């Protein structure tokens, strides 16, 4: 019977059917759900690793012991894991080893838009690119076969419109691995990458990619040619193929299921069979460049199709209709200019502990190096309390490098190294660890600081204070961010030191972390504005709380101050965190009554 699964679920299902025994990931949109799904299968050990490099290393270790293993991450995660990847390409694998890397064209929830296909050529390892859920499952399974047959890690490219798209497929059965379990000391020259041995493997890597190219041409079942109207042939892959097929179904197609190495003979045959070739691919001209380098004339590609942002059937149609159909693209009727409508950017949840903390930083006038996660939303006006952000945990080093500034951190991902640096090299930055006990932004995943594993089993929990002291931080303070004044005093004291310091928030559970009942700590269920006291100073608006808005209306306070409006608190949205009541100078925000 047909089932409907999301691309991520289908990858997990494919891994299970392939006989995977170990799965490791650091959550990152759009890849996060793969490991969450995989953790439901009892035959598989799964973990949230502290970062992607660790995930790849743990999974590779499992592979060397004969297990089939999978590591999953978003595109920027592979940057972190690139170090092991580039040399695992030399050592190879024993049990099949697949690394899933999910791109985010259009940057729906990412700090950059890098095209992960470049890793495959750079790393000299094969990459497969599924287009829908059925292919997600099938390609994951064949990726394990390729991995074992060619002794290589295999990259599987996801992306937002594949990983987060639901489509139909047939479920299969699990097939246990036949690879012999156990480690073999005789394999040392293949696995110890000192120069003497690595030079030997360097040759093996080139031989392997040649064999893989032949396999891509003759055996790999998911590079396919559809010769229909031969006047135009499209070369495409993944979801770009689906968009093109949707818009121009009557022409010919070469769909590449394997991004690298390319099937040279098949490409040659396609150029013989069709008159003109258009390459449709998202982001960089990866195929186009390679195909041109083979000496072929590509009629159209990135000259017409945008290289920035995601593609869609509309963009493919707009870019190519004139060339393909020799008529101009007719845009649908515009009834409203969407740019005239108020935008709706995401915001920190009502009651979130990051809100008062960032308000405190703002009031102190500090320059904040921020980090990846919900707290990046503190950049939004009027809170406007973040000033630099690049990648996970970069803020700790950034803060040290820039001088007297602040960083908060996705600390466990990569913040310990730069904190050591700040201490060792006599820095005086203040690092804030916003401990909300969960990986919140990506949808509530556990990590070594939460006290639970991916299977929700109790586990050891990082003690941030001891950890900071162990690397040599002398000044470690804890603050309750919901006490705004006290928090400001502690931060003021710590940033004025000539030593590195660490401030850890406590009582700051993520508001969405249901198991910990975060709302119970608030005394009152909601607050309201006392219109007899509100003087319309608008300070309450500065914290960007989704429950607070401004209402126009001439009036005056009980003691006669004239005003043009008041603050307003929507009690359906307010959770009673009291931060606005603390910052109101006129005691105009009071516990609400039903």
């Amino acid at each position, binding site marked *: 019977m047909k089932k409907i699964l999301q691309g991520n679920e289908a990858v997990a299902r494919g891994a299970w059917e392939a006989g995977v025994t170990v799965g490791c990931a650091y959550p990152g949109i759009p890849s996060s759900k793969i490991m969450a799904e995989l953790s439901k299968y009892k035959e598989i050990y799964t973990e949230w690793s502290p970062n992607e490099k660790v995930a790849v290393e743990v999974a590779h270790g499992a592979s060397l012991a004969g297990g089939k293993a999978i590591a999953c991450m978003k595109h920027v995660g592979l940057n972190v894991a690139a170090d092991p990847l580039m040399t695992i390409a030399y050592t190879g694998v024993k049990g099949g080893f697949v690394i899933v890397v999910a791109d985010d064209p259009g940057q729906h929830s990412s700090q950059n838009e890098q095209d992960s296909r470049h890793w495959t050529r750079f790393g000299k390892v094969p990459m497969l690119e599924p287009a829908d859920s059925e292919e997600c499952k099938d390609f994951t399974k064949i990726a394990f076969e390729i991995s074992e047959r060619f002794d290589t890690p295999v990259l599987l490219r996801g992306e937002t419109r594949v990983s987060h798209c639901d489509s139909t497929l047939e479920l299969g059965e699990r097939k246990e691995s036949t690879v012999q379990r156990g480690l073999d000391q005789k394999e040392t020259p293949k696995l110890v990458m000192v120069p003497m041995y690595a030079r030997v493997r360097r040759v093996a890597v080139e031989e392997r990619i040649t064999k893989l190219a032949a396999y891509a041409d003759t055996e790999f079942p998911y590079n396919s040619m559809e010769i229909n109207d031969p006047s135009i042939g499209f070369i495409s892959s993944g*979801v770009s193929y689906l968009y093109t*097929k949707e818009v121009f179904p009557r022409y010919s197609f070469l769909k590449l299921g394997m991004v690298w190495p390319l099937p040279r003979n098949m490409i040659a045959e396609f150029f013989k069979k069709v008159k003109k070739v258009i390459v449709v691919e998202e982001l960089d001209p990866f195929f186009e460049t390679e195909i041109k380098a083979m000496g072929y004339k590509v009629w159209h590609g990135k000259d017409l199709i945008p290289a920035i942002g995601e593609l869609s059937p509309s963009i493919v149609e707009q870019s190519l209709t004139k060339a393909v159909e020799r008529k101009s693209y007719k845009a649908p009727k515009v009834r409203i200019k969407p740019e005239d409508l108020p935008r709706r950017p995401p915001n920190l949840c009502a009651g979130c502990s990051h809100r008062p903390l960032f308000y405190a930083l703002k009031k102190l006038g500090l320059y904040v190096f921020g980090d990846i996660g919900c707290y990046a939303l503190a950049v939004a006006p009027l809170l406007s309390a973040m000033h630099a952000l690049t990648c996970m945990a970069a803020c700790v080093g950034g803060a040290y490098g820039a001088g007297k500034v602040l960083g908060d951190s996705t600390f466990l991902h990569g913040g310990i190294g730069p904190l050591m640096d700040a201490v060792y090299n006599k820095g005086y930055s203040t690092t804030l660890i916003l401990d909300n006990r969960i990986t919140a932004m990506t949808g509530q995943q556990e990590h070594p600081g939460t006290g639970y594993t991916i299977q929700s089993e109790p586990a050891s929990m990082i003690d941030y204070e001891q950890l900071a002291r162990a690397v040599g931080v002398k000044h470690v303070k804890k603050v309750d961010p919901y006490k705004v004044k006290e928090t400001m005093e502690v931060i003021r004291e710590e940033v004025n030191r000539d030593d590195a310091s660490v401030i850890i928030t406590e009582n700051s559970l993520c508001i969405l972390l249901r198991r910990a009942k975060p709302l119970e700590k608030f005394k009152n269920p909601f607050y309201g504005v006392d219109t007899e006291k509100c003087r319309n100073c608008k300070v309450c608006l500065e914290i960007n709380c*989704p429950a607070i808005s401004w209402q126009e209306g001439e009036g005056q306070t009980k003691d006669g101050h004239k005003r043009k409006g008041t603050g307003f608190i929507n009690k359906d949205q307010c959770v009673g965190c009291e931060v606005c009541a603390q910052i109101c100078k006129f005691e105009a925000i009071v516990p609400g009554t039903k």
Partner: protein
Amino acid sequence: MKENGKVTNIFLSGVGGQGTILASNILAEVFLKAGYDVKKSEVHGMAQRGGDVTTRFRFGKKVYSPLIKYGDVDYLISFEMLEAARYINWVKPEGKIIINKQEILPPAVSLGQIEYPKDIEKMFKKYFKDNVWIFNGQEIARKLGNIQAANVVLVGAFSNFFPEFKEEQWTDAIKELLAAKLHELNIQAFYEGRKALQG
């Protein structure tokens, strides 16, 4: 399964936390069980944080793209007035529209910097005449005891467009996707929504 070849495009829009994804999951389940090929695309991440959320759902004999072409939407289901207006250009001239009459203020409106657009209902009626249904699904859900069920109220309203489906096809999907303790509330919500659009 009727119509061969034709793919039907449904666009759902709302604000993070309103349950657009569950609503689209119910649709996917119903059309899958009815024998159609289905594809559904959504963007996660900001969904719980009050940002705008969209889901595209397509069904037909064979569906290629998970995304809908601009201007090709057959049904727009919106959980919030402004989030309906944002996608009005996407709807075909003969498209049908269901909107939950709720206004959730975006930040710039909360701050008093810009007004919430006032004439959304009028604008939809102007372009789509009798093919627009705007009703207060949230109020219906509130009466049932939980405003979170407004999404299923809208699914109930939408179900009227497919008279060939039995009511059980919808309620079975709801049962399949939700925990047992939520069945009663949501099935009620479905029926109330179904009645609301008939009346």
